[in-house]
């Protein structure tokens, strides 16, 4: 670009039409962003199409009955997904039951000035580091450290509350309950980080307004701050749910991969992602199709969770 000033003799149209390298860069930049944006959409469609087309033979053969069948028999070509669907949902829900109260509690604690900044900042950093731990590390830690540690407690629960169907089997080393607990630890940082940010972004005027009316810290938190940050908190829970549903490595290592449904949480179980991770290597033909059918179900489940998150977050934002 030259540093020449605008020639007075040129009309507006003349100078607009004149070649200008900066204008060209502008054009290239525009088309580049269009291409990348379309590329992302294309990849998503490609994945969805692949899942559908490879799963198609299984969809045709088993139809909707696939969702309700418990068999997984490659010899007879009889496949179903019920144990995996149930295991995926139950493990995610138990994980949420642990992680939501804990996560929101920690978020509240870290967003209030309970602690001096010198302690609070490193503590927040540690929480975010939890999210950086690879899932295979969680799996190994679960197998070799956490499960042996927690098993005696679960045996105690079984002895005392064994009459409740949920705790009716002796705790196995590979089982639903411990898997859900490790999942809870894995999704904790998501809930904490996003909930804390949305609590911190509540206008300080609201906090002062509540204190100014004679509200205690508890009343300010529970009736003003948390409701004001609710869209963010729910969003964090939904994101965490999505992660818990799809989490593969830790589930595959810890849950025991038993293709059956057991009312007892202490028994081995299975999830969709664990099933796929265990079987894709030797699968072919209809078994491969059935695995892709399961993958399709998982994708639809996480899609629904994400859409629900959008809807809920939007609805709460409109109220504000």
């Amino acid at each position, binding site marked *: 670009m030259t540093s020449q000033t605008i020639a007075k003799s040129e009309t507006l149209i003349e100078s607009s039409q004149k070649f200008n390298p900066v204008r060209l860069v502008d054009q290239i930049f525009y088309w580049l962003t269009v291409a990348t944006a379309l590329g992302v959409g294309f990849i998503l469609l490609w994945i969805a199409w692949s899942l559908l087309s490879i799963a198609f033979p299984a969809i045709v053969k088993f139809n909707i009955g696939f969702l309700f069948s418990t068999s997984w028999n490659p010899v007879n070509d009889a496949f179903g997904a019920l144990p995996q669907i149930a295991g995926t949902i139950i493990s995610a829900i138990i994980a949420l039951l642990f992680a939501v109260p804990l996560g929101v509690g920690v978020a509240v604690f870290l967003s209030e000035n309970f602690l001096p900044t010198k302690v609070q900042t490193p503590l927040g950093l540690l929480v975010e580091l939890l999210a950086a731990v690879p899932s295979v590390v969680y799996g190994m830690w679960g197998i070799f450290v956490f499960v042996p540690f927690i098993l005696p407690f679960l045996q105690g629960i079984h002895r005392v509350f064994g009459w409740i169907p949920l705790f009716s089997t002796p705790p196995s080393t590979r089982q639903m309950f411990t898997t859900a607990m490790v999942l809870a630890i894995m999704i904790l940082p998501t809930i904490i980080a996003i909930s804390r940010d949305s609590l911190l972004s509540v206008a300080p005027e*609201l906090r002062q307004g509540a*204190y*100014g*009316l*004679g509200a205690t810290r508890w009343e300010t938190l529970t009736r*003003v701050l948390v409701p004001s940050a609710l869209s963010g908190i729910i969003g964090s829970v939904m994101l965490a749910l999505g992660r818990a549903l799809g989490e593969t490595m830790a589930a595959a290592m810890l849950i025991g991969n038993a293709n059956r449904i057991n009312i007892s949480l202490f028994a081995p179980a299975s999830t969709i992602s664990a099933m796929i991770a265990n079987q894709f290597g030797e699968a072919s033909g209809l078994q491969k199709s059935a695995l892709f059918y399961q993958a399709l179900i998982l994708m639809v489940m996480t899609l629904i969770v994400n859409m629900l998150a959008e809807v809920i977050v939007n609805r709460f934002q409109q109220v*504000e």
Partner: protein
Amino acid sequence: MTNPSTRPAAPQATQSEDIVLRTENVSVYYGAFEAVRNVYLDIPKNKVVAFIGPSGCGKSTLLRCYNRLNDLIPSARVTGKIAYQNNDLYDPKVDPVEVRRRIGMVFQRPNPFPKSIYENIAFGARVNGYKGDMDELVERSLRSAALWDETKDKLKQSGLALSGGQQQRLCIARTIAIEPEVILMDEPCSALDPISTLRVEDLMHELKQRFTIIIVTHNMQQASRVADYTGFFNAEAAEGGSRFGYLVEYEKTESVFNAPREKSTQDYVSGRFG
């Protein structure tokens, strides 16, 4: 008042009045920074008292001492004595939550909660353990704040859907609802248009029948319109070069505006300041 650290003569005007809040030799610090120095000032009952002065002279800081809102800032420290009903507000035995239930506050920017109009008013009443008829209280508070006619058909709507002036009157209504004795107003009209400002000022004339009002304002016409007493604050460079605020003079509003004792007051109220 060239040396603000000496005790000024008590304003003649307030001597015969019933005093709600006594401010004796109060200084406020943020860490090592001294925001306000050695303020003596008495607030008479059922009057409107205005604090005026340039930015950074500590009027808002002092205002926030009266309901202990400075407690929320970890580095803030208050010395001296503020007496309310012969109790020191800063006595360790005093719970700041109880202080704020008796001394309410309206803020500079309207800050209704993201709840319905009804719930905005019910909130303060509930946290204060109000057991009476909530519908009646909501109506009474909205009427007192001159907001009832505009909102009676949409009590379930969000308080944030109101205009700025309405929001501020909603904030006044929710403060009235907890029946405080004193209402602190920190530049309550600075975010409002002139019409809304006049409505809030009219409201203050009515409210002082029942409440004592302390208002911080940058608008001198507003002080002269609403206040019975006016305190002029100014800032002065301290030894270290930082500035501290202090009370220059505190008198009946007419005297402050028409016959100020101090030259700096005269300069400020006549617009010849800085």
